[in-house]
């Protein structure tokens, strides 16, 4: 077990492309950290630098307090699970699991014991004599995980390990990984582009874009207080509705819709009054009942279409006299014909505002 600390890490390729820029991140000992971002954001490169598979162009990387920039991957004592599992095709499952231990000249008796324990834990005990080609996707995933576990490394690095699994298997592996982390307490760095994985698995989420860290925080903190429109639009499904509006001292106008500002927010946003802003409205903050939120404002929404998901209905609609679309999370019995108008009560306490030029969030009081 070990903490992992990145200070001002850069990754520059010879062709001048900067894949990672000035990344600083402290991952605590035993923490489950998620690196989240769209493809090409530098999250996998960051993970590969931690593993030692990519050189670090600038900055310092510490694992367990020791600087490891120039330490060979073999000596960093971390384990990595790849998206395509990267099982050794010419070895049996048992040999795949024990490869790392055999390289370290661990006693044969101990290797056999550990392989048996891990195989039992992951339910792959009866597959030990098989070759990877004879395994299903889920079984390969388990073997890849087992190969990482069996060495008892300081940290696990997971590079989108669930993305090749079907939806059902992915959900169950998600739960298993969380349980595993709880049992072992080992530091885990998990790279993903799936915001559901990020929200459900991580103790903290580090959101990256274009090679830089955008925001780091606990899932609910990042969800509640996104630092900019990118984070707001990336987390949750459907994500936050982002609409152009005009901020005045006592109200916000989004086209023809006018939302009165509660007293507390007036003070917080006073310095921005008279400016154009981006208004962030979460789909789940619209309510059909008037008394669902203490400070609410009515919003009329014209239905474009509804997506019936079963447990809930997503209404895709537009504001009156506007073409900007927004998504609203409705109860499962909600129905609306295209063109029909529904009045929702928007919970003003959840209102988010973003600067129209910098896209960063305007300061918001933590409590209203």
């Amino acid at each position, binding site marked *: 077990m070990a903490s992992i600390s990145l200070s001002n890490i850069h990754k520059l390729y010879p062709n001048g492309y900067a894949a990672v820029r000035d990344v600083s991140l402290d991952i605590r000992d035993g923490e489950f950290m998620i690196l989240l971002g769209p493809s090409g954001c530098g999250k996998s490169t960051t993970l590969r630098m931690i593993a030692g598979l990519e050189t670090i162009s600038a900055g310092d990387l510490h694992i367990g307090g020791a600087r490891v920039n120039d330490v060979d991957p*073999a000596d960093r004592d971390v384990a990595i699970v*790849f998206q395509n599992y990267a099982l*050794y095709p*010419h070895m049996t499952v048992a040999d795949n699991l024990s*490869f790392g231990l055999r*390289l370290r000249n661990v006693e044969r008796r101990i290797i056999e014991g550990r392989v048996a324990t891990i195989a039992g834990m992951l339910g792959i005990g009866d597959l030990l004599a098989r070759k990877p080609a004879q395994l299903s996707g889920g079984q390969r995933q388990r073997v890849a995980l087992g190969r990482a576990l069996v060495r008892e490394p300081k940290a696990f690095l997971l590079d989108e390990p669930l993305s090749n699994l079907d939806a059902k298997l992915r959900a169950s592996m998600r739960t298993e990984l969380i349980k595993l982390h709880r049992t072992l307490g080992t530091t885990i760095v998990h790279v993903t582009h799936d915001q559901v994985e990020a929200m459900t698995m991580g103790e903290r989420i580090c959101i990256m874009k274009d090679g830089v860290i955008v925001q780091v925080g606990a899932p609910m903190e990042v969800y509640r207080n996104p630092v900019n429109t990118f984070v707001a639009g990336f987390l949750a499904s459907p994500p936050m509705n982002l609409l152009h509006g005009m901020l005045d001292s006592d109200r916000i106008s989004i086209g023809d819709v006018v939302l009165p500002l509660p007293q507390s927010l007036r003070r917080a946003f006073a310095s921005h009054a008279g400016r154009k802003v981006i208004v962030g409205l979460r789909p789940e903050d619209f309510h059909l009942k008037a008394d669902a939120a203490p400070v609410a404002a009515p919003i009329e929404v014209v239905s474009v279409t509804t997506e019936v998901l079963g447990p809930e209905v997503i209404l895709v609609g537009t504001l009156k006299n506007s073409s900007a679309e927004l998504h609203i999370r409705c109860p499962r019995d909600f129905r609306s014909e295209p063109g029909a108008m529904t009045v929702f009560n928007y919970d003003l306490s959840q209102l988010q505002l973003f600067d129209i030029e910098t896209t960063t969030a305007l300061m918001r009081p933590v409590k209203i």
Partner: protein
Amino acid sequence: MIENDHKSQGAAFGMRGIVKRVLPHIILCAFSLMILMPLLWILRVSFTDRLTAYKIPPEIGTVGLMNYVEIFQRYPFASWFLNSLIVALGATAIALPLATALAYAFARFNTGGTFLRLGVLASQMLPPIILVLPLFGMFLMAGLMHSRTGLVIAHLTISLPFLSWMLVSFFEGDVARLEEAARVDGATRWQAFRHIAVPVAAPGILAAGLLGFILSWNEFLFALVLSGPSSQTLPVGLAALETHAGVEIAPLAAATVVSLVPVFALLPFLRKHLIKGLSLGALK
């Protein structure tokens, strides 16, 4: 199976169906015959006596193994065969590890960049005759003329570039991911190469080795110029059967048949491993 298919399909589709299925087979059989005829001809000639060998239309004449006996008794066929075997095995044994290492360096480190890769290929594009004379001069100075060692070195100039180019693709792609996994697992670069890259690329390496052997076994020009009486290889020896008194066609046929045996024996392995090697990419 196939014939049954034919019948049922033919019945189902009528005359046009039959023509459509039979016509390609007729064409294919014709082409196969074109390729097989010389081989069958040689096989027939190798079992007949000198006089009937030239007869057209072919006659059966006396059938026997006399030509096979003759090449061993009147000509140093055993020596040619042994020389060929030693040179081909020697050249392959040296070329294969070197080509493997070179291909790995190309695939993993892009050693020398495009320039070196093309340079290696360029040596293959030159007509061999251009290389023969400089080699002749160098071997004279080094005292390697007429020796099997010299021939092995000469054959390396052909097989090393060829094999390394062939092997590059076996080290590219998914094998790199596997090596990364191994290195994080605790392997050094050498261990990852030795325990992961080489075994995973083994079918390709084996196929390359077989091709290298056949290349060297069949090589004629270098052997003709650089070998001496005691180091003559099969292709050179066979050419020597074209004497002033005419081509000794019957013993030549017998010798050709024997020299084909190792190549034919290797072909099934080559096919199996080439196919296996080429389908290795399926990792997920």
